[in-house]
């Protein structure tokens, strides 16, 4: 099945000087795809060569099109010696293979060299001719779309959500091959980059095949990871959720879509009054896989808050439910049971999809790596993950859930030990989206429950007497009809219709544990012994901090455990919120071991007072104003008898089952933390040292920050990396914890300081990654986006404070993209933004001259962007409608006016979120998945490790932006830096770093020119929704 790939090398600019004598370069270009190579002529003596080559045509299988990247190498011609490579560009052809994505790749690409970084730019044009028969694609998996976004992409509608797809491919790491001893590190790094690019392509193709088998046309929530296993090889693995997506676009079809989008949620809300809730359950198994022997350990940990106890009560939950529910559940179950793993990598869902959320399920296992003998049959790695997934599945079952949402997998490798982790949220889903035809069946069983939307998913479906597991239940605070649990932990985003009081905040639990240095199996055993304690303590910390914030639910929970030679580092991040439906959290109770000592009592009570003050302050800060029940909790730190018993009860229950693990809490009357205990001191310490976010700042690690909705268009994505050296060899656990805690806190403080000009603003999707790259090093990398919002409006909104309406507004803004009519309206007034631009500027200046320079600039650029886009869409339109060479020429000229030297570079926004505030995503152009290695042998000269990494990250951003711009896009959404492996050898003056980033390239347009510029006039959509 041949396709024709065509590439044209237009020009280069800013090339480096390769010939010292003349201060010039004789550059030419090699274009390689598969095994075919073409060369341009040498363009002598110029740093800005104009090759203007012919079209190089590659006739290839579409399988190759998917696997291979287009390799462009720029070289300096040398008559006498070998030609010097200036650098390379890898172009992923995949976006061109789908008819709905990009149609041409054209633009300036940075020429990248692993030693020198970016060395000038090259202008390239790439097209693919596929002979239009869509059925043909079934042979390979061309045409399957990939999205990093973990929700249904904004201009699509999910017809069917098929479910989990996974695949992994392995290969030998070129760096560890014998040839590495004789070739330069540069050559070996280039080989690595090439190989990983190839493997990613292959992986996508294979996953695509699975999707086609399932009858889907897209993968959403695509998560691809690399495991650099050192000598045992290189694993590239990916998971995702297969879907059948339908584009929401103009004409009759859209009316239809709009109709469904509008009508179904309300139905679904009625359909989903019941939710089953459980706490967290995590299990941890560590079959250590060694060459000689096989030892396996397995145990389960349940946390004090976990309302689930014991093991193996799988599937029992369904039986207790009413007949209707059973029916409903059975349908879904059958739909799901057809699948091996009913997992979904999505974190937010179409309305009505998620019925019940049950809590976090996670599983970890410790493995010893050994050489992968047969790369074509990566059975061991597959088996490992299979094991883990089975475990997750059984946990979910045990929680009475048939599905796992917000599912993700990760690894941490140190030498030959590898920790595999999988986690997700057990949930009950509506089968409507899972199967065609389910819709009709369901509509017959529509229940008449009048529970208000927004608390439904928290409700516990069974009655108190008949609970499948002991849980602390209380009546729902919203509807007072059904029971809800007291705390809810999840890995997903906050559902858009959830009722929330106040704002959310980032909650982190941080922990370090020392470990003896050892090797092989001993090491693995040691780690697997430590793991459950680590997890337990992280969990306790999370729970305490949550209570300290006066909140009762965690979303987006992500627990990372990294292993180093002599320590384990755990970092749990989540966004705490106060779910209106859940009961108000109790205070934290301090107790001493020796209650008769007077001074001691004073000490205890002073700490108690501090804690109570903090809780009150936090409630104020996050605007959690609770009516009724909550007051007595704030008023009296000592819980009422009922609460007291509850606290005690849940605690004692947990210590019962944890008896083999940790008895330190003992069985005492009415306390939560005992300060005699070293662990408790530690807990207390971490509780009280967390600095509150400075005024004007909010932070979360989820997509949406509850309570804030009036974003401006000013966004700033950033990556910050810190490496900390522990010089003191004799550290205690306590000292280590303190250091780690400070490291994270200082990092956050730095971020707040840096971004102070954007206030009021929220750091969204704060994504922390920890690593222990060397013996005494801890590395923390953060990627997030700072988005500013209009302050005056928030306050106003707070007064009007219907959390529900706010949430709805957000939902609305997101959903809005599904209304194509507005799109048309906007494109009909192409000149208006221009006219209003300067005015906007003066307005914003008049209002707040002191702040927010950036947002002003942002606005200016936004209408420039808009104009540019318009030109762009016109061009795209012409290409699509006719295939004559004429529009092609036109497109070229349009494009070239944009990119010729002198004109400025187009702005590309980047964000880890799936949306851009105040803008509509009109088209997804394809997935960006890039892998770079940078090395240096002159570390000091490049400004030390910081200088080196700073330059590299800036280069990575630049390359991502260039690729997006070349696809015709103006933003990357769902951007993430999945890997940042930094290694240094200061003595040799060397360093090396690998970075892997991914995201979705999109085209967005600004919603309207009057969008949010004047605070008085710009109450955007929410006003319509605010109840009178």
């Amino acid at each position, binding site marked *: 099945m041949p396709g024709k790939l065509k590439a044209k090398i237009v020009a280069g*600019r*800013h090339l480096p000087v390769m010939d010292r004598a003349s201060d010039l370069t004789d550059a030419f270009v090699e274009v390689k795809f598969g095994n075919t190579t073409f060369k341009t002529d040498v363009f002598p003596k110029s740093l800005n060569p104009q090759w203007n080559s012919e079209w190089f045509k590659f006739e290839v299988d579409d399988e190759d099109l998917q696997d291979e990247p287009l390799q462009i190498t720029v070289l300096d011609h040398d008559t006498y010696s070998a030609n010097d490579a200036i650098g390379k560009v890898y172009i992923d052809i995949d976006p061109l293979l789908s008819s709905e994505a990009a149609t041409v790749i054209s633009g*300036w690409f*940075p020429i990248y060299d692993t030693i020198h970084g*970016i060395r000038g*730019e090259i202008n390239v044009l790439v097209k693919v001719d596929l002979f239009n028969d869509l059925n043909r694609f079934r042979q390979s998996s061309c045409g399957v779309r990939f999205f990093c976004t973990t929700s249904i992409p904004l201009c699509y509608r999910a017809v069917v959500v098929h479910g989990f797809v996974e695949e992994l491919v392995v290969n030998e790491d070129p760096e560890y091959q014998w040839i590495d001893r004789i070739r330069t590190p540069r050559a070996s790094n280039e080989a690595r980059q090439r190989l990983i690019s190839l493997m990613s392509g292959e992986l996508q193709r294979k996953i695509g095949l699975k999707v086609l088998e399932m009858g889907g046309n897209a993968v959403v929530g695509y998560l691809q990871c690399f495991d650099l296993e050192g000598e045992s090889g290189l694993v590239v693995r990916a998971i995702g959720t297969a879907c059948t997506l339908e584009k929401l676009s103009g004409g009759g079809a859209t009316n239809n879509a709009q109709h469904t989008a509008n009508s179904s949620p309300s139905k679904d809300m009625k359909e989903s009054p019941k939710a089953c809730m459980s706490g967290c359950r995590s299990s941890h198994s560590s079959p250590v896989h060694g060459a000689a022997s096989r030892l396996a350990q397995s145990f389960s940990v349940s946390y004090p808050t976990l309302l689930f106890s014991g093991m193996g009560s799988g599937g029992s939950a369904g039986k207790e439910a009413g007949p209707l529910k059973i029916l409903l559940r059975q349908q879904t179950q059958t739909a799901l049971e057809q699948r091996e793993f009913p997992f979904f990598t999505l974190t937010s869902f179409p309305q009505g999809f998620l019925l019940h959320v049950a809590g976090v399920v996670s599983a970890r296992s410790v493995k010893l790596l050994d050489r992968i003998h047969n790369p074509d049959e990566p059975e061991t790695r597959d088996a490992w993950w299979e094991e883990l997934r089975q475990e997750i599945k059984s946990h979910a079952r045990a929680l009475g859930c048939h599905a796992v949402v917000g599912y993700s997998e990760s690894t941490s490798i140190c030498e030959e030990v590898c920790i595999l982790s999988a986690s997700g949220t057990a949930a009950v889903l509506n089968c409507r989206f899972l199967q065609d035809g389910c819709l009709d069946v369901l509509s017959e069983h529509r229940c008449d429950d009048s529970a208000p939307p927004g608390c439904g998913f928290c409700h516990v479906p069974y009655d108190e007497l008949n609970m499948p597991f002991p849980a602390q239940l209380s009546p729902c605070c919203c509807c007072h009809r059904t029971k809800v649990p007291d705390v809810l932990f999840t890995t997903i985003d906050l559902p858009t219709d959830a009722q929330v009081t106040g704002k959310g905040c980032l909650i982190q639990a941080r922990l370090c544990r020392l470990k003896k240095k050892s090797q092989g199996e001993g090491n693995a055993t040691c780690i697997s012994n430590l793991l459950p304690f680590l997890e337990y303590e992280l969990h306790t910390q999370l729970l305490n901090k949550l209570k300290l914030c006066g909140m009762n639910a965690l979303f987006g929970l992500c627990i990372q455990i990294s292993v180093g030679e002599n320590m384990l580092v755990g970092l749990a991040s989540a966004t705490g919120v106060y779910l209106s439906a859940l009961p108000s959290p109790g205070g934290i109770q301090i107790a001493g071991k020796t209650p008769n000592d007077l001074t001691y009592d004073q000490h205890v009570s002073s700490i108690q007072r501090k804690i109570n003050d903090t809780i009150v302050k936090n409630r104020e800060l996050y605007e959690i104003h609770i009516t009724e029940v909550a007051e007595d909790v704030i008023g009296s730190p000592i819980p009422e008898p009922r609460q007291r018993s509850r606290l005690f009860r849940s605690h004692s229950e947990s210590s019962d089952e944890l008896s083999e693990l940790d008895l330190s809490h003992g069985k005492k009357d009415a306390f939560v933390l005992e300060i005699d205990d070293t662990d408790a001191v530690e807990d207390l310490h971490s509780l009280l040292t967390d*600095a509150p976010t*400075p005024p004007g700042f909010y932070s979360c690690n989820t997509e949406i920050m509850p309570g804030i909705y009036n974003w401006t268009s000013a966004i*700033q*994505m*950033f*990556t*910050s*990396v*810190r*490496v*900390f*050296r522990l*010089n*003191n060899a004799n550290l205690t656990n306590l000292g280590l914890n303190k*250091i780690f805690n400070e490291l994270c806190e*200082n990092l956050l*403080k*730095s*971020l*707040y*300081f*840096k971004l*102070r000009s954007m206030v009021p603003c929220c750091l969204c999707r704060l994504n922390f990654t920890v690593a222990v790259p060397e013996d005494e*090093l801890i*590395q923390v990398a953060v990627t997030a986006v700072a988005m500013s919002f209009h302050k005056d409006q928030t306050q106003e909104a707070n007064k009007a404070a219907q959390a529900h309406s706010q949430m709805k507004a957000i939902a609305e803004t997101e959903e809005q993209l599904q209304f194509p009519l507005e799109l048309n309206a906007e494109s009909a007034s192409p000149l208006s933004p221009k006219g209003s631009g300067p005015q906007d500027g003066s307005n914003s200046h008049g209002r707040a001259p002191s702040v927010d320079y*950036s947002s002003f*600039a*942002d606005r*200016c*650029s936004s209408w420039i962007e808009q104009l540019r886009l318009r030109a762009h869409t016109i061009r795209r339109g012409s290409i699509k409608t006719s295939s004559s060479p004429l529009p092609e020429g036109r497109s070229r000229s349009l494009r070239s006016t944009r990119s010729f*030297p*002198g*004109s*400025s*570079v187009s*702005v*590309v*926004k*980047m964000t880890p979120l799936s949306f851009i505030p105040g803008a509509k995503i009109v088209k997804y152009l394809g997935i960006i998945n890039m892998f770079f290695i940078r090395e240096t042998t002159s570390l000091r000269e490049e*400004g030390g*490790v*910081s*200088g080196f*990494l*700073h*330059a590299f*990250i*800036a*280069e990575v*951003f*630049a390359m991502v*932006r*260039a690729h997006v711009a070349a696809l015709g896009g103006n933003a990357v959404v769902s951007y993430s830096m999945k890997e940042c492996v*930094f290694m240094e050898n200061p003595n040799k003056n060397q360093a090396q770093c690998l970075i892997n980033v991914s995201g979705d390239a999109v085209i967005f347009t600004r919603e309207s020119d009057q969008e949010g510029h004047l605070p008085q006039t710009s109450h955007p959509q929410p006003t319509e929704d605010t109840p009178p």
Partner: protein
Amino acid sequence: MSVELDVFVGNTTIMDQEVYQLWLSGYTVGDAVKVRMDGGVLDGCDASAEVLRSDTMDQFRTFQMCERLLHNPAKLANQLLFQIPPDRQAMLIDRYYAFDDAFVREVLGKKLSKGTKKDLDDVSSKTGILLKSCRRQFDNFKRVFKVVEELKGPLVENIRQHLLLSDRLARDYAAIVFFANHRFETGKKKLQYLTFQDFAFCAGELISHWTVGAMDNQLEDMDVDLDKEFLQDLKELKVLITDKDLLDQHKSLVCTALRSKTKVFAEMEASFKNLSRGLINIAAKLTNTKDVRDLFIDLVEKFIEPCRSDRWVTIDVNLYLTHYINSAHILDTFKHQAVWNSLWDELFKMLTDIQHVTVCFLVKMGMVASGASAAAEGTRATAASSEEPVPVHPTQFTTSISFSFRDMLNVGCRAWPHSG
């Protein structure tokens, strides 16, 4: 325990103008942190000095990486490494190429060579500007010089287009390039009272009237070189002082015109011949490169100082020179030589320039006189009323006020006690 690595990279490059200024002023990270702390950045922030240090380091690193691009401002606009909004780019470029008047005053007219660069530490200690900043400014001068050296067309326009500088900066750089090219002597003690802006004004006049480009617009040639032919022709002016009759005739014409128009008429009449000789000699010698270099010092010594000792005021000088030129025009010799007319017109243009320049110089002198009789005291007064020499505290951003010639004239008149 130590932070081994600490970086922050934004998709849109974050740059704080204040930190940029500190970097440009050549501060080390430590000093910059101190200045920022004293400036109160941390007020109202819950942040430690460590945070400030990390922020400063990050930004300094960013600026260092940008510096390569700033050397070729056109590159900044279409580079891909940093995403910087266009208005920010303009700010970066303008500030990078901005210079301290105290510094430029030290190197103005000097050859932009390695030798001069070696002496920068002296300049640094003299002006109080950090050596690093001196080096940047010096390299900027050199870079601009190199860029426009081989270019044709108007100098200011070339600088503006190739280095994307603002009008004002482009004009100033044109002056610097022009002075460096001709190595005009500006460092002598007698010239110390003149600021860079005074010289920049002179340079502007000379560029627009004396250079090859000015003489022949069609030629589209360099603005930097003085028109040799023109300088050669200036020798013809000598007739005004060598021919006794002409000299007398000229004097009587001027005196008739000036009589009763000025209070210092007697002095004018007395010194006419001296002054005329002084001016014409300067003009006639300009074919020698050496004498071109000394143009300004000669003007001060041969013309301005005698005027000043006679207590002329600006208006007197202006009047004198106007009539001096006009009278020369109507001298019989020239009237009858119609062929020469156009040439003489040009020569008088030169004289007019000299008039402008000297008046400009005198305005300064005038201030001296107005201050008191003591010259030293006056110099200080000049310094204070003109724009800069006091090294400006780097945190406040130096925006130099651009003086137009007319402004100066006005200021001068007001300062002059007899002019009212």
